[in-house]
């Protein structure tokens, strides 16, 4: 677990490290130049231009050595130091982006955006899973019925549509043709306003509907397939022969047995949705982690990229871990076999 986290970080740093160095070095050069420009007395104390340039160069080099930029980014010291800082959630300061409140601390930015992403995608996943489990159980109890066929074909069709494209269509339909929902998902009132939460929820509707429409079909299909497998097992057939009513069998006995894989998938899709959020949030302009990530990449704001990747990976790993634990809890067979 921890190893995976470190490897992810290492790869990220390795990928962006050299760029980061160039940017930081340029940053120090500009900083030194402006400091000197602000203080004309320094410039006047030199007799020739060359002497002045030498002094500036000297200053820049000193600054670079102080910051430790003279060593290449792949030196063990610097990687170790960077990793240590990241572990303590100290991502440094963003180069370009700021949070809504104006802070350029990456930690602030991320913790401002993270709740919104979680709000949108967790709500969506919960709605999807409720509809999905219900529909899946329903169609598995009546295999071959119209409901079953519609669910299966809907699952197949919806899984091949990209979510963001459906998003564009939804914006086209419901934001411009019929002006029901706003096109941009970012509320236009400041976050301190008391009506902010209401506005946020209203702006959340369109992305939420889109994600649910695309998602629930494949969920229902998965649940149906698990249930079909379980319905063929001996104990269900035994219950049927005793004469317990079909509905009760499906919703209590069979569903309970299908729980472990369903819960695993729930945990995985929760974290998976956070990663997939990048494109969806870019389409709807939802002010969450995904859009932050996208913005950070377009302007190459490296501290933000590293921080966001770290947080996403942490979430992903934690949910895999939780899924494993839950699986063991719900399915005793796993516990005894180990």
């Amino acid at each position: 677990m921890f190893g995976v986290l470190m490897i992810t970080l290492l790869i990220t740093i390795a990928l962006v490290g050299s760029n980061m160095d160039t940017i930081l070095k340029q940053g120090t050069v500009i900083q030194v130049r402006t400091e000197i420009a602000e203080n004309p007395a320094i410039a006047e104390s030199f007799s020739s231009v060359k002497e002045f340039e030498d002094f500036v160069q000297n200053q820049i080099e000193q600054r670079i050595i102080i910051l430790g930029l003279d060593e290449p980014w792949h030196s063990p010291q610097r990687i170790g130091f960077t990793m240590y800082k990241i572990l303590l959630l100290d991502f440094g300061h963003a180069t370009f982006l700021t949070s809504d409140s104006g802070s350029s601390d990456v930690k602030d930015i991320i913790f401002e955006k993270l709740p919104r992403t979680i709000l949108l995608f967790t709500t969506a996943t919960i709605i999807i899973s409720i509809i999905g489990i219900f529909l899946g159980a329903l169609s598995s109890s009546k295999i071959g019925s119209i409901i079953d066929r519609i669910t299966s074909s809907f699952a197949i069709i919806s899984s091949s549509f990209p979510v963001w494209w459906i998003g564009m269509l939804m914006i086209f339909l419901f934001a411009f043709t019929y002006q029901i929902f706003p096109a941009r998902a970012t509320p236009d009132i400041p976050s301190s306003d008391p009506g902010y939460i209401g506005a946020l929820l209203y702006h959340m509707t369109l992305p939420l509907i889109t994600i649910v429409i695309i998602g629930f079909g494949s969920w229902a299909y998965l649940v149906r397939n698990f249930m079909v497998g379980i319905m063929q097992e001996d104990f269900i057939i035994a219950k049927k022969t005793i004469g317990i009513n079909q509905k009760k069998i499906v919703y209590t006995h069979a569903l309970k047995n299908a729980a472990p894989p369903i819960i695993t998938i729930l945990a995985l899709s929760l974290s998976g949705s956070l990663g997939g959020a990048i494109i969806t949030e870019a389409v709807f302009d939802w002010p969450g982690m995904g859009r932050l990530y996208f913005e950070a990449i377009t302007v190459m704001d490296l501290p933000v990229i590293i921080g966001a990747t770290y947080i996403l990976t942490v979430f992903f790993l934690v949910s895999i871990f939780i899924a494993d634990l839950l699986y063991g809890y719900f399915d005793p067979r796993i516990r005894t076999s180990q």
Partner: protein
Amino acid sequence: MSSISPQEIKQEFLKSKSGIIGITILSTLVILSIITIVIIPIETFQEWNNPSSWISYPKIAIPVWVNFLMIEKIPEHQILEDPHIQTNVEGRILSTTHQFGVNFEYDEFPNDFIYEFTAKYSESPLLQITVFRPDGIELELISTSLPFSNSETIHTERVFSTDELIKKKIMLQSELFEFDLNKLSTESIVFSKIQNNIPLKGNYIFSVNLHSVNSENSIPESKLIIGGKAFGIMGTDELRRDLAVGLLWGTPLALFIGLVVSIASVIMGLLYGVYAGFKGKKTDETMMRFNDVIYALPVLPFLIILSVTISNSIFVMIGFLMIFGWVGIAKVSRSMSLQIKTRGYVDAARMMGQSDSKIIFKHIIPQLLPYAFASIAISVPAAITTEAGLSFLGLGDPSFPTWGQILHDANTFGAAARGLWWWIMPPGVMVAMTGLAFVFIGNALDTIVNPKLKR
């Protein structure tokens, strides 16, 4: 998992409805891409991001077929390159006449008209453009001399309908019309009825005359563009690009990306998983740990970082998609090979002293082939949508415009807000259709390979 012979698979497959639908869509797409590669020259496609090569096309034009559904016909964009050519000699005056017939049957005025020509002459010939309207009126548009030159010269020019000279000339003939011509654009006068300002339908003839005295002249290139609001089967976008070209060329590209990524990652995963499962013990343990590490990496953020920092070339992108594609397949094929390994004939083969590689390739992998084909089909849509997603974020390869990039452009130019449905719908439908074809095929294969799902 019992072994199924290829014949049985074929039979079962032909029985399943979704499989047949999938094959039909897929073969349509394949035929479409072959036609595209043959008919549309690759140069047009490589010029996709070069605005100058699309200059004679209209901006955001609606597809032409919309006119079949409309009562009020939208003017089509017409590019006429095939004039009727005449040369006359009258004493010392030599004139070349190019006549373009324009069939105008629409209920709205065109956007503009442009005459683009390259003339070969010496001295200073006179250029005259006249319109013969369906109601018999002859409207003179322009009468100007081309720049003087002593020796023979080649001169290229575009005459726009917004030209001041044309405006003045028409104002001189304003008594022909029964309404006020002020503030009206040239094209809405030329194509208007006399009584009131609504379009006059019928055949127009644009006649271009080049008169020169005592010298040869000719117009080697001559093109009349009637700027309309509808063009081509798929319309055009903000940058005047013919969307049909982009959509058609996107088909072979998407198929290529999808198939290469899925085939390569399935082969990689299969070999990796089978080897790990077959070897067992320490090897298995280490190989599966490595697998877990890759599995735990967040795919999309990594793909984005990789394409930003390393390269956004389409081939590199295909490589990245492969790196993340093989993991799941490796897991499943490992557990399958664990089962097969315990079977009697594998033991027998081992006892006969066959080498490991021979056992793997001759006895284990053939058993997994049906599963492998099903997973190839199932993983194609994922590869295509991931590529489309990356392109949508603007990380695509600009020299290979895919459907995702068309959608990216649509999004940057606010196509949804402006109601440009022909820019948004077709690329997405194409992505979905391609995905659908493979999902159908994959599902049909999957039900055959895993009989448990059938009921």
